[in-house]
């Protein structure tokens, strides 16, 4: 039964082209895309942002924005051409025969409708379930996605559930009517790494159980390689390469695929492996000799940060006779101590909410700790309240590169003005010519073309904005630079370049880095030492290789296992493991 359908694809996309009308003219979002999909198979559509992968998915579902239209080609699903089918027929197929799950599950569900009711809506539309059985069916659907206590969860509103739980509800909703095709559009974006893994495992298991045809749309080559049998690699609307996962990794033909595979960090890749564009890294400047027993650059001792002290019920709540609960203060950072040496890079790793950002913001003196010491070259900076820290000489010595390059640049300042700000404030540099010379020098250091300096952030690409952010941070020659997930908003190919740039700068300028990230694979590339945090505490410290190869803490182990990387393929496929060089 499983063999027969192999010959007839359930979904066949042939020569699909999609055009978008925009103010700037017609944009060809998808160009001449073809692929077939069979039952029981998971195909990965992989590409960076703007590659047209989501447009393809929306098109199959017939929920494309009205500005877009199919210019050429066909999408044949179970014998019906979806590009010519009318809306009535399409809405019969959607949710019953073909379903879709989305990124950011918390906003993909109706915020003011109970999740059970939302599943019932779909059941009522597509099945002949009697009204009295709807609830039972909805609870069964919740149960099928391994939600515990589905009878209670039935009544929950999305805001009462975690992101991972919302994604399970999304999957329950999508599979409630037993469709034969499931499209997963970046289903793990916005979720924690460990949650990502459980969600993806769930999708895979359910797809196997129900013999679904699945399309996984993702930017993450590692994720796709772990779960998909076949891949389609897309770039600016075109499929540059398609084939089985093994073929593509063993023998990538298109230069873009090769570049993409290269740029995806693997468990054993070195920084230089990620990108072709890296020229010779400058030799590290010898650090000035320090006397024996001199204090390290940074020593954090027993750092604690607490939030929300006080009672949780307001006065009128008490008036109504609600129980007065004294809320325990929440400890975001719980007794954290670590050392960063001169010229050293330390990784601070953990999932969201583990306290890594609070720790780094406290060290950066954007937040005041509840207690503890922050010894910077022996001087306790925690004693200076962060309100007044802008005025002390140490301000220039600790700088930061922010997570989201777009959000961290003032939309009303040009790149030049963004970089000039710390120079004018902290170095008191007022002479226009002097400023300009320094900014041009910095632009050269971070590889930002000088003509881009007059542009506003919205006129720059993600990578260019990241360079502006880095130039701004190093402009006043800090000794300690905190990198707060500096590449998480960037495409992998850009990430590779930025990581290399950061390594170059460190070698040239002798700065120390604290690299805050959720991704051990990336942290490993830049850092000598890694600190793993969970629930506000440090649970493990060691060299990057030690931790990756031999994690002592079970949490660290689950974190490492959850991060998708290309090397899982190596375990599946002998030949691949023997010839790792063929990728490079």
């Amino acid at each position, binding site marked *: 039964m499983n063999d027969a359908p192999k010959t007839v694809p359930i979904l066949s996309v042939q020569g699909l082209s999609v055009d978008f009308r925009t103010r700037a003219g017609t944009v060809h979002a998808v160009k001449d895309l073809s692929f077939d999909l069979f039952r029981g198979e998971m195909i990965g559509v992989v590409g960076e942002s703007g590659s047209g992968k989501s447009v393809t998915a929306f098109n199959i579902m017939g*929920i494309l924005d009205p500005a877009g239209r199919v210019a050429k080609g066909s999408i044949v699903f179970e014998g019906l051409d979806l590009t010519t089918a009318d809306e009535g027929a399409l*809405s019969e197929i959607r949710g019953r025969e073909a379903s879709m799950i989305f990124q950011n599950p918390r906003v993909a569900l109706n915020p003011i*409708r109970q999740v059970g009711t939302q599943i019932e809506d*779909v059941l009522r*539309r597509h099945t002949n379930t009697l009204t009295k059985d709807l609830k039972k069916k909805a609870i069964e659907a919740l149960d099928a996605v391994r939600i515990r206590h589905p009878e209670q969860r039935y009544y929950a*509103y999305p*805001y009462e559930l975690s992101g991972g739980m919302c994604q399970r509800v999304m999957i329950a*909703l999508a599979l409630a009517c037993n469709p034969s095709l499931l499209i997963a559009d970046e289903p793990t974006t916005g979720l924690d790494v460990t949650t990502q893994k459980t969600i993806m495992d769930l999708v895979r298991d359910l797809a196997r159980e129900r013999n679904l045809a699945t399309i996984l749309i993702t930017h993450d080559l590692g994720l796709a390689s772990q779960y998909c049998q076949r891949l389609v690699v897309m770039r600016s609307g075109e499929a540059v390469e398609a084939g089985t996962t093994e073929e593509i990794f063993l023998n990538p033909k298109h230069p873009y695929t090769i570049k993409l595979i290269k740029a995806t960090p693997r468990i054993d890749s070195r920084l230089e492996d990620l990108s072709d564009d890296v020229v010779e890294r400058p030799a590290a400047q010898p650090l000035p000799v320090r006397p024996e027993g001199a204090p390290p650059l940074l020593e954090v001792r027993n750092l604690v940060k607490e939030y929300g002290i006080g009672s949780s019920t307001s006065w009128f709540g008490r008036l109504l006779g609600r129980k007065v609960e004294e809320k325990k203060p929440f400890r975001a950072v719980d007794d954290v101590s670590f050392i960063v040496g001169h010229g050293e890079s330390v990784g601070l790793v953990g999932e969201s909410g583990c306290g890594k950002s609070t720790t780094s913001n406290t060290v950066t003196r954007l937040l005041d700790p509840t207690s503890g010491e922050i010894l910077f070259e022996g001087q306790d900076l925690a004693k200076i309240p962060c309100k007044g820290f802008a005025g002390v000489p140490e301000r220039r010595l600790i700088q930061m590169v922010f997570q989201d390059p777009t959000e961290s640049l003032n939309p009303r300042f040009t790149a030049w003005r963004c970089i000039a700000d710390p120079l004018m404030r902290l170095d008191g540099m007022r002479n226009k010519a002097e400023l300009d010379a320094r900014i041009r020098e910095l632009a050269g250091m971070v590889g930002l073309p000088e003509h881009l300096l007059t542009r506003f952030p919205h006129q720059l690409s993600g990578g260019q904005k990241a360079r502006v952010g880095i130039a701004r941070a190093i402009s006043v020659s800090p000794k300690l630079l905190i990198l707060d997930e500096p590449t998480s908003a960037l495409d992998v190919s850009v990430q590779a370049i930025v990581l290399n740039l950061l390594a170059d700068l460190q070698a040239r300028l002798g700065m120390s880095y604290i690299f805050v990230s959720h991704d051990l694979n990336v942290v490993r590339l830049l850092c000598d030492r890694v600190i793993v945090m969970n629930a506000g505490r440090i649970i493990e410290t060691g060299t990057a290789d030690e931790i990756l190869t031999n994690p002592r803490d079970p949490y660290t182990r689950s974190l490492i296992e959850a991060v998708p990387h290309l090397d899982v393929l190596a375990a599946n496929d002998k030949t691949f493991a023997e010839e790792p060089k063929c990728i490079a």
Partner: protein
Amino acid sequence: MRGRARLAMIAGRLLQAIPSIAGVIIVTFVLTRALPGDPAAYFAGPTADEQSIAEVRKALGLDRSLPEQFVLYLGDLAQGDLGRSVSTGQPVGAELLRRLPASLELTLLALFLSLGVALPLGILAATRPNSWIDHLCRVVVTAGVSLPVFFTGLFLVYVFYFLLGIAPSPLGRIDVFFLEPPDITGFFTIDSLLAGDLETFWASLTQLILPAITLGIFTLAPLARMTRGAMLAVLSSDFIRTARASGLSRPTVLFAYGLRNAMLPILTTLGMVFSFMLGSNVLVEKVFAWPGIGSFAIEALIVSDYAAVQGFVLAMALLYVALNLIIDILYTVVDPRIGLEA
């Protein structure tokens, strides 16, 4: 359990109205005491001598300190005493109560008219962006907020009364040849229907319709604008995409998913709309010589009858607080998230 939490929330919301009411009372009190001139001299009349002015001052409690006066004022308010109107000689509270139904009848009909047009118009405009109905909506919205309400009223009177002669003369709630219907609800249209008197019903309705349309046009604009905006925002949100990807029918997507979520910002706007309405009500009443509390206030203003004006301001403010309260309670019914995140 959820139901009880909801009830507690509504009770909490009622308690939250207390600071608003306190603020309103304090401001009204301050306004009363900020009067130019000496109220005692005014109340005593132009022929009064020093002594009788002092007596009046004492009788009004104006010789005491401000905090004492405030306590007295609160005491009067607690008994529903808003003072005596100089021009009519009647207690202000009674005057306001007598005229309130006229204003309410006008305002409520105007509200239903504008809701009846604004909601469909906004929804249609949002579902068909850049169609003719969207352009119509835009024109209506911009024109509606730009038209001075007294100007619209006069224009309608000119066209429908003077030129076409199909509307009755814009003087009051009912033509002088008709008797007022028996007072049951105070709403002439409803009372005449209850009395089975269709002629009186028609007479009062024709009197009512022009001022109601005038007021309705003014409130139409913010409602239609918000309906369109809220529907557009909701329809482009992720969960609508999910609903469409699940193949839900268009009415379900549009109403159960779209409109219900869009109701939240629309309800918020409704509060602002009531503020506009109660304000422009005064202007419309003047144009149509409508015997409501707005006309009462204008008459009082002309003869500097301050007790009446302050009573009017306080009554309007309390009415508005009550309306906002109803909106908030509706809001908690629509949105399960309210109050729980705090």
